[in-house]
């Protein structure tokens, strides 16, 4: 028994071995990886060599001051639950991170990034604490409103608790938004106007003396809302902000010192020897360039520098700065989350890191246009009416041009390189980030080809995730016409829809950013093109009105209104609703509800449809008796996952397959005592989903496959309305020894190639699982073995060879996007999370491509040699025959 089991494993590993692997010299040949640190939260320039940053992604990293490259990077726990709350850079880097009561205090070596020490503690109180780190003491402060604050101090290196938790009576703490820590002081204002009081107390002294000063006496009385804000990297400095004008206070044991400068609340201090410099950005500069003002704190000398920094997103704040003499280096963060290092007094930008790319929310691959030359050859065939002479002239002309291009050795085009290659492997990847910037990435190198910042917009929040739907309205195939892509977003303030149409190849906006006068509920790309090969975009507003953009697509929609259907799934209302457009007239489009599906108390957690461009090559599955089981390939099938709390089974996961046209529930299943994370992959006639089995405490993958039966009811066309009988489902479940963060099936041009499922694991690997391993065997499999049949093993192996990113871990993966190349065997993959990783996968190996070590020269030489040899021997033979005849 054990022997057979082992044999099966060996067999499996053998199968894996023949399907993938990468040679050492192929590293970086088909793939690239861009490393990011995330949205910078804290940053300190620790010496003239590096800047230490802590980010929203719970990452601590060191960037080189010279070129901005990552010197080291440590990815900490899941950022959804844990955040870095304190970064202190001294001889070593100290961080406090965590959340929900569990806190980790860590010390890092600032030059290598290795962990020096670590300790953690747990607090019953889940409230977010305040932290002060001074003189080797870590102070943990929990304020209790209206009563007292609890102070616990620890030795930062080993976590020894010096004495017990102290309680200071602070009845003046009424609102946490009015309280801050500044250096070693805990400080509050009593009211948000000039009549209030400023309280502060030293957290490290044992005296616990509370100082009180009326705000009037500090900054004078004037009407306006007053806020307090601590100074980034400041000592015991504090801003009192009134009407966007900040005054700097230095808190001292006796009385606070008020500096007489009007500042912005985003000013930072930099130490220049024993002098302290204040730096701030000036927003309203006459030119559009960034201007930085420096103020010497003691003497009050002001300098204004104009920077050579052009970023339409604008600078959000100065994170950190360091000065040496007159030269300063300023680390700034922009509104698009990119970070830059600026130099004073020159005003140069040393480097910029596009950290926005660590928060990708939407990805789409776009085909590149033909090169100008290829396009001209294509145009030869455009004029159908051309007579023989003009066609001949065109041919000669384009051939001469081709020859000239070959002779001159260049493409003679402005966008060199951004043209379609033979195998369609070169694409442009359009990426939308959470900060509202769109990037065009070259798929060959990962270089940024273009970028565009959209002000005042944000993505939609769908099931707790940001989402920006991208629609390909026209591909680059129709050469003189530009490719067009539409992105839908919403206005940050009003929540109304924003439609941005652009050329994905150049990034140029087509028309203006269209601000729609309503909220967008859902949108769909029409399947039909108009006479300019443009696909219309159908948008449903919040009051269920239907609009079509551009308006030229309206006649097309009306023509095909009977075949276009629409559905919405409400995550709050928990109702699925189907619509048709049959009742539309030329005046108004009308979406008529046709079916509803009430999910009851269950929470909607995922809806998945098959990729619209997917093609299914094989229409059935061959059984052992050589009969065919036809697949139930329904392009309108929606896969829906819901999770419901249950008093007995804790949580119940339900999976539904619903026909989106008729609302017919084709298949449903329920799993008891399971939980999140749930991922769905829906492709061809099957569905794979992963869930956490709370009963056995493991991740499981379940698969469903739908078959029509041994005959096809209609072999030429598929209609959801023609239901003769329900499809036969086959199911199977597997234990998966990993935690999936994202799952997706590969996609190829014609669907001939096998399907693999790409699974991004929490360990940082992205692994490929062949569909053949997951295929439900059902009664057909067990009865009689098919050829190439893989026996069922409950626990799926994750062989190291199946990891497509070999040893390059990708932390915090948020999603995977695939696109077919024009080569049938190849599928392009972009994995996005904290990093971006791009590669190609070939699920059935490169069956349509010669190997790269194929010896063209040898073959050619052998062939030519043989031909030459055969001619020589022929001649020799004829000579010999002649000689013989003369004898």
């Amino acid at each position, binding site marked *: 028994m054990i022997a057979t089991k082992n044999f099966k494993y060996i067999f499996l590993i053998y199968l894996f071995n023949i399907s993938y692997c990468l040679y050492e010299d192929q590293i970086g040949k088909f793939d690239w990886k861009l490393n990011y640190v995330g949205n910078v939260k804290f940053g300190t320039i620790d010496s003239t060599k590096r800047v230490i940053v802590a980010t929203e992604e719970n990452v601590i990293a060191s960037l080189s001051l010279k070129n901005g490259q990552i010197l080291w990077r440590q990815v900490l726990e899941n950022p959804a639950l844990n955040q870095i709350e304190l970064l202190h850079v001294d001889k070593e880097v100290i961080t406090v991170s965590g959340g929900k009561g569990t806190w980790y205090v860590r010390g890092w070596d600032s030059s290598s990034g290795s962990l020096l020490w670590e300790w953690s503690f747990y607090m019953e109180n889940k409230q977010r604490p305040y932290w002060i780190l001074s003189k080797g003491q870590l102070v943990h402060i929990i304020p209790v409103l209206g009563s007292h604050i609890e102070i616990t101090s620890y030795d930062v290196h080993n976590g020894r608790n010096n004495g017990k938790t102290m309680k200071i009576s602070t009845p003046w703490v009424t609102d946490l938004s009015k309280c801050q820590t500044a250096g070693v002081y805990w400080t509050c204002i009593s009211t948000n106007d000039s009549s209030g009081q400023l309280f502060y107390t030293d957290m490290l002294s044992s005296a616990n003396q509370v100082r009180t000063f009326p705000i009037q006496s500090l900054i004078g009385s004037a009407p306006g809302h007053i806020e307090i804000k601590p100074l980034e990297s400041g000592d015991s400095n504090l801003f009192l902000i009134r009407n966007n004008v900040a005054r700097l206070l230095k808190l001292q044991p006796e009385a606070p010192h008020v500096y007489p400068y009007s500042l912005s609340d985003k000013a930072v201090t930099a130490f220049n020897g024993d002098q302290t410099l204040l730096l701030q950005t000036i927003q309203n500069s006459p030119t559009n360039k960034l201007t930085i003002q420096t103020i010497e704190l003691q003497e009050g000398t002001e300098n204004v520098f104009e920077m050579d920094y052009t970023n339409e997103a604008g600078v959000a704040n100065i994170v950190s700065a360091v000065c040496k003499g007159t030269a300063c280096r300023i680390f700034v963060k922009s509104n698009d989350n990119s970070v830059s290092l600026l130099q004073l007094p020159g005003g140069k930008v040393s480097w910029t890191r596009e950290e926005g790319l660590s928060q990708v929310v939407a990805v789409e691959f776009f085909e590149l246009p033909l090169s100008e030359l290829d396009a001209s050859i294509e145009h030869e065939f455009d004029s159908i009416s051309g007579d023989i002479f003009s066609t001949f002239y065109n041919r000669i002309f384009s051939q001469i041009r081709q020859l000239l291009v070959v002779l001159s050795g260049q493409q003679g085009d402005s966008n060199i390189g951004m043209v379609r290659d033979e195998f369609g492997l070169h694409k442009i990847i359009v990426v939308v980030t959470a900060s509202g910037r769109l990037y065009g990435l070259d798929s060959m190198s990962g270089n940024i080809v273009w970028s565009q910042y959209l002000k005042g917009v944000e993505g939609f929040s769908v099931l707790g995730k940001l989402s920006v739907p991208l629609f390909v309205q026209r591909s680059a195939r129709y050469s003189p016409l530009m490719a067009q892509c539409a992105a839908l977003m919403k206005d940050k303030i009003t929540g109304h829809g924003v439609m941005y149409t652009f050329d994905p190849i150049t990034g140029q906006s087509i028309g203006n950013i269209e601000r729609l006068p309503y*909220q967008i509920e859902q949108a769909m790309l029409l399947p039909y093109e108009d006479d300019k090969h443009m696909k219309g975009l159908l948008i449903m507003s919040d009051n269920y009105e239907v609009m079509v953009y551009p308006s030229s697509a309206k006649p097309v929609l009306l023509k095909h209104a009977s075949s276009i259907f629409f559905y919405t799934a409400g995550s709050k209302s928990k109702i699925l609703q189907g619509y048709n457009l049959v009742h539309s007239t030329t005046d108004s489009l009308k979406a008529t509800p046709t079916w509803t599906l009430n999910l009851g108390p269950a929470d909607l957690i995922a809806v998945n449809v098959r990729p619209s461009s997917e093609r299914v090559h094989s229409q059935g599955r061959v059984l052992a008796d050589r009969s065919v089981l036809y697949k139930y390939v329904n392009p309108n099938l929606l896969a829906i996952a819901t999770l419901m709390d249950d008093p007995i089974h804790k949580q119940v996961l339900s999976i539904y397959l619903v026909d989106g046209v008729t609302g017919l529930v084709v298949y449903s299943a329920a799993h008891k005592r399971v939980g999140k994370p749930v991922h769905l992959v829906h492709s061809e006639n099957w569905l794979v989903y992963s869930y956490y089995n709370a009963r056995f405490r493991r991740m499981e993958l379940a698969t469903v496959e739908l078959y029509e039966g041994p005959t096809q009811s209609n072999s030429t066309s598929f209609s959801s309305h023609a239901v003769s009988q329900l499809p036969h489902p086959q199911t199977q479940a597997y234990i998966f020894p990993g935690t999936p963060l994202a799952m997706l099936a590969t996609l190829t041009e014609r669907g001939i190639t096998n399907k693999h499922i790409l699974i991004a694991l929490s360990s940082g690997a992205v692994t490929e699982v062949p569909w053949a391993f997951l295929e439900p065997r059902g009664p057909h499999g067990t009865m009689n073995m098919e050829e190439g049949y893989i026996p069922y093993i409950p626990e799926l192996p994750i062989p190291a060879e199946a990891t497509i990113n070999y040893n390059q871990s990708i932390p915090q993966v948020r999603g995977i996007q695939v696109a077919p190349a024009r080569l049938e065997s190849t599928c392009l993959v972009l994995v996005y999370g904290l990093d971006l990783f791009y590669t190609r996968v070939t699920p059935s190996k490169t069956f349509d491509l010669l190997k790269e070590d194929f010896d063209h020269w040898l073959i050619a030489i052998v062939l030519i040699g043989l031909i030459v040899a055969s001619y020589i021997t022929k001649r020799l033979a004829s000579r010999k025959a002649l000689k013989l005849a003369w004898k």
Partner: protein
Amino acid sequence: MATNKLQSKRFKWSLDSSKCSKLSSINESALPAPPAYSTSGVLSSGEVAKKTDASHLIMKKSWEVALAPIKQVPMNLFIMYMAGNSISIFPIMMVGMLFMRPIQALFQLNGTFKTVENSSVIGQKIVYIFGNLVNIGLALYKCQSMGLLPTHSSDWLAFVEPRVRQEYIGGGIMFS
């Protein structure tokens, strides 16, 4: 001179008994016939016998030719049995031979029966064709048992076109 020489050269090896009357008279009158030599009647009857024997031989020969394919059947059956049903190079070559030989034979039908021309061999031809067809049938049977004949629906699966969809669907989870 030259012609004379040529004639004498020819005469050197030819003996014309009709020209030399003297010799013939001597032959007939004086010398007895050699033993087992008969001058009367034998020639005609012998000629007739020779003629019937040849046609009989041709018939026999033609039937042999006609029956050859049928005689091959047991041998083919044995080869088929020995080749087995696995698909590999040798059984495939054997199946190829099983097919090729009768088909070639059918194409060369008239050539085969040319040696026995000018007599009617329709019966033999029919038998010959029948024998070859039996052999082709055997080859087909072999293909069938090897699973090489596209008789199952799965063999035509690759030619089944994807079905054209009648409806299109779009939408998703509501944005607000």
